[in-house]
């Protein structure tokens, strides 16, 4: 495999583990430190009482005799088990059996590398398990082959109010992506729509050169120039760059992409936005993008961009950051973990995170793609398709209303690691379908930072919030540990989560409006168009005349872009109704 792929995985795993650490914290916000109050009937119990009237569909109803449910899902190396437990034998599986009467067993599991292949083989063989974790394109593939159960009715009847609420946090878009011809064929886990790109700058360099934090994009340009020309590291050599950039001009190439800079110009790479006339248009070919490239070209000419950026992928640029050659870049929320922790450890680089800024008085918006990150499908002919919905109901219910005991048993268990210490087992991962409130994390951040200020963690309850609190406290007393620095840069005041919180508060996102399937022309022409884009954009930054961009736009249209636009707009017309 390529190092690009490895890195993509690495970043994904990092991002996931980081966000999982905090997101699951959302549940602990509701943990009551003293669970001595009169226990309120949980939805489960309340529902159990109602279930005497069989006509009513009960989201938590228990089957009289256990139903068998065979599932295929992704289980990676981050899944840890208590001694004697396994993916087939754990507290969640017992809970499903006890509460719902669902006997969940795994037909097979595989890790990220092997799962897609194994799933393709399974689909090709035609012998599919009752419940499967798949990706978007496979939903279409399976639905086209008429292999999937129609979940429309099951979802309408059995999804709990809490599940429906979580499902609709993104405006129901992820749910729509699981529909074909109005029928629901999969349960999606909606992806986060919190913008992720922000600006990272070395505050120590800013201070050294007497510069202020950036308020506008013009400030960013000034900083970039100063960083490249005024010797911010003070070694007397011209060995620093203004802004860190890597070779790909594509969405989600992070860190060191141009997405954040483009947002400042109101241009959005690889994103379908509204054209103001009731249709959609591809932002990559709009005049705003021309300005972005012109700006980059100027910065390259001025020595603010590495002459070699065209051959450097993000891992190579990481090295430059750690070596102290780069003082500013656009990166994702998890950048403090990689590469900034190393940079801090190396020369105490004081990296700070800032929201992206705009070239004019319109705020800079960041593109997000509402979508499902995982899809769960049920085999056609499986007698109890609603069982899958019930699994999702139960997780949504438990993660919302955890008690101290439940947290330990069903969310995160702390066990002896055999060396006298404790290690945390992420029990929540055993539940197969987990919908989350991606924005709940920000309330928790506020709680935690308040507690750090007051020194009183009593409002935090148990679980992750308390753990985060303790990590932040550690930074206050011990300013030598890179891990403590990382926690502070992520969770602390002014940290990356607070930048994201500001994005949410100020609604600084713009939706990628196209979430339909890969169209026919896309599958045939998109890679050609993308290559053209990479080639032309790179050459313009390197100094080719900007008219190349105009030529690119007309080429793009002629080589299939126009057809794709038409397909996208036809699709948009059907969903607007």
């Amino acid at each position, binding site marked *: 495999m390529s190092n690009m792929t490895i890195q993509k995985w690495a970043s994904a795993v990092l991002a996931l583990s980081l966000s999982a650490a905090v997101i699951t914290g959302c549940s602990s916000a509701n943990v009551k430190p003293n669970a001595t109050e009169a226990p309120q009937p949980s939805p489960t119990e309340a529902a159990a009482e109602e279930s005497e009237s069989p006509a009513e569909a009960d989201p938590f109803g228990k089957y009289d005799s256990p139903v068998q449910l065979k599932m295929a899902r992704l289980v990676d190396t981050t899944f840890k088990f208590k001694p004697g437990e396994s993916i087939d034998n754990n507290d969640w599986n017992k809970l499903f059996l006890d509460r719902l009467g669902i006997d969940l067993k795994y037909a097979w599991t595989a890790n990220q590398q092997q799962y897609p292949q194994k799933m393709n083989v399974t689909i090709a063989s035609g012998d599919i398990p009752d419940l499967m974790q798949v990706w978007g*394109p496979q939903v279409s593939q399976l639905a*086209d*082959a008429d292999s999937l159960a129609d979940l429309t009715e099951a979802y309408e009847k059995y999804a709990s109010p809490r599940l429906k609420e979580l499902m609709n946090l993104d405006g129901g878009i992820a749910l729509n992506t699981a529909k074909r011809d109005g029928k629901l064929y999969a349960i999606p886990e909606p992806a986060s729509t919190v913008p992720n790109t922000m600006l990272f700058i070395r505050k120590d360099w800013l201070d050294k050169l007497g510069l202020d934090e950036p308020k506008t994009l013009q400030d960013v340009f000034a900083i970039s120039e100063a960083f490249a020309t005024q010797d911010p590291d003070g070694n007397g050599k011209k060995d620093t760059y203004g802004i860190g950039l890597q070779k790909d001009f594509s969405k989600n190439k992070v860190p060191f992409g141009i997405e954040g800079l483009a947002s400042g110009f109101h241009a959005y790479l690889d994103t379908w936005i509204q054209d103001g006339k009731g249709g959609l248009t591809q932002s990559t070919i709009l005049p705003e993008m021309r300005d972005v490239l012109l700006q980059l070209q100027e910065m390259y000419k001025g020595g603010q961009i590495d002459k*070699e950026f065209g*051959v*450097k992928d993000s891992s190579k640029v990481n090295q430059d950051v750690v070596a102290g050659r780069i003082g500013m870049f656009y990166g994702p929320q998890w950048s403090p973990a990689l590469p900034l922790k190393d940079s801090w450890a190396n020369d105490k680089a004081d990296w700070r995170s800032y929201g992206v800024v705009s070239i004019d008085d319109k705020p800079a918006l960041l593109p997000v793609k509402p979508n499902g990150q995982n899809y769960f499908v049920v085999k056609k002919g499986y007698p109890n398709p609603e069982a899958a919905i019930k699994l999702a109901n139960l997780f949504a219910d438990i993660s919302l209303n955890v008690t101290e005991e439940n947290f330990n048993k069903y969310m995160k268990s702390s066990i002896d690691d055999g060396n006298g210490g404790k290690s945390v087992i992420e029990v929540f991962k055993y539940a197969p379908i987990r919908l989350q409130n991606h924005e709940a994390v920000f309330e928790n951040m506020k709680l935690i930072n308040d507690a750090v200020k007051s020194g009183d963690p009593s409002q935090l309850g148990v679980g992750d919030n308390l753990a985060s609190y303790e990590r932040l406290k550690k930074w206050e007393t011990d300013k030598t540990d890179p891990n403590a620095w990382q926690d502070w840069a992520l969770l602390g005041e002014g940290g990356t989560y607070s930048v994201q919180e500001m994005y949410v508060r100020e609604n600084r996102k713009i939706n990628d409006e196209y979430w339909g399937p890969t169209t026919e022309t896309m599958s045939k022409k998109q*890679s050609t168009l993308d*290559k053209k884009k990479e080639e032309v954009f*790179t050459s313009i930054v390197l100094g080719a005349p900007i008219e190349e961009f105009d030529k690119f736009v007309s080429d793009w249209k002629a080589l299939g872009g126009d057809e794709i636009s038409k397909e996208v707009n036809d699709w948009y017309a059907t969903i607007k109704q």
Partner: protein
Amino acid sequence: MDIAVEKKQTEAVGAKKRSRWRADYPLHLMVLPGLLIVLVYHYLPTVGIVMAFQEYSPAKGFFRSEWVGWEHFEYIFKLPDFKSALYNTFFIATMKIVAGQVVPIFIAILLNEVGKTYFKRTVQTLIYLPHFLSWVILAGILTDILSINYGIVNQIIQSLGLEPIYFLGDNNWFPYTIVMTDLWKDFGWGTIIFLAAITGINPNLYEAAVVDGANRWKQTLHITLPGMMPIIALTATLSLGNVLNAGFDQIFNLYSPMVYKSGDIIDTLVYRIGLVDAQFSVGAAVGLFKSLVSFVLITVSYALAYKYLRYRIF
């Protein structure tokens, strides 16, 4: 009487055949598992070629997928990038084949002339070590070594008073960089087979040559090289099959949009098409196209080797 004799003879031949079969059948039995594996894993999958002519969908399988004939081939050949990719593939692969033949032969002969065993062994081991490194690792190392800013190669070039060369970002240099780095990685490995061939030459020939007054150079020219010829013909013929394999791992890890013009090969093109949407049929069509070209070239070179060297490979 004649008839009787003939009959007897045929009977004898038949009996001989039978007894030979009896003596040999354990050997045949031993070949059977290998034969089965070849059948199951090499011949059976060729049925999959049918995918190249279908709008293949795994859910529908070979039998129910729609038949589209040459559509995928037309699609590939009409791709705007295909011509340049084909040219780049051919250009890079040909250079690799030639260099990958000439250099190892040269090195093998030189090594053969080295008297000190420990020196010969050390050199041999050192030069074939890079073969075991993957291109992912090497790409990272090469990007550093060839860097225009800090790379050691360009520092040497600059210390000689020359302009630094952008090996991985300049379209004029990139194909040669690819060939050179590939050669560096694999020439040591290539010498092994030629060294073995030299070892196989009858020492009597050299002794006779010495008696005839031939010096080292003449010995090399008239004994070593002709002695190696069958192996050279074999490797050359087989390597011709690679004329459309310019090395996906290597190029994918080393190229960038700056050098798409000179470095984009068929495999990387197909990879990008495949990435956007899993188009199995297109992949199968390209695979079939490449196999056909290889097949034709190997057949031709086989015939040439026989015609000029009187040498049968198979």
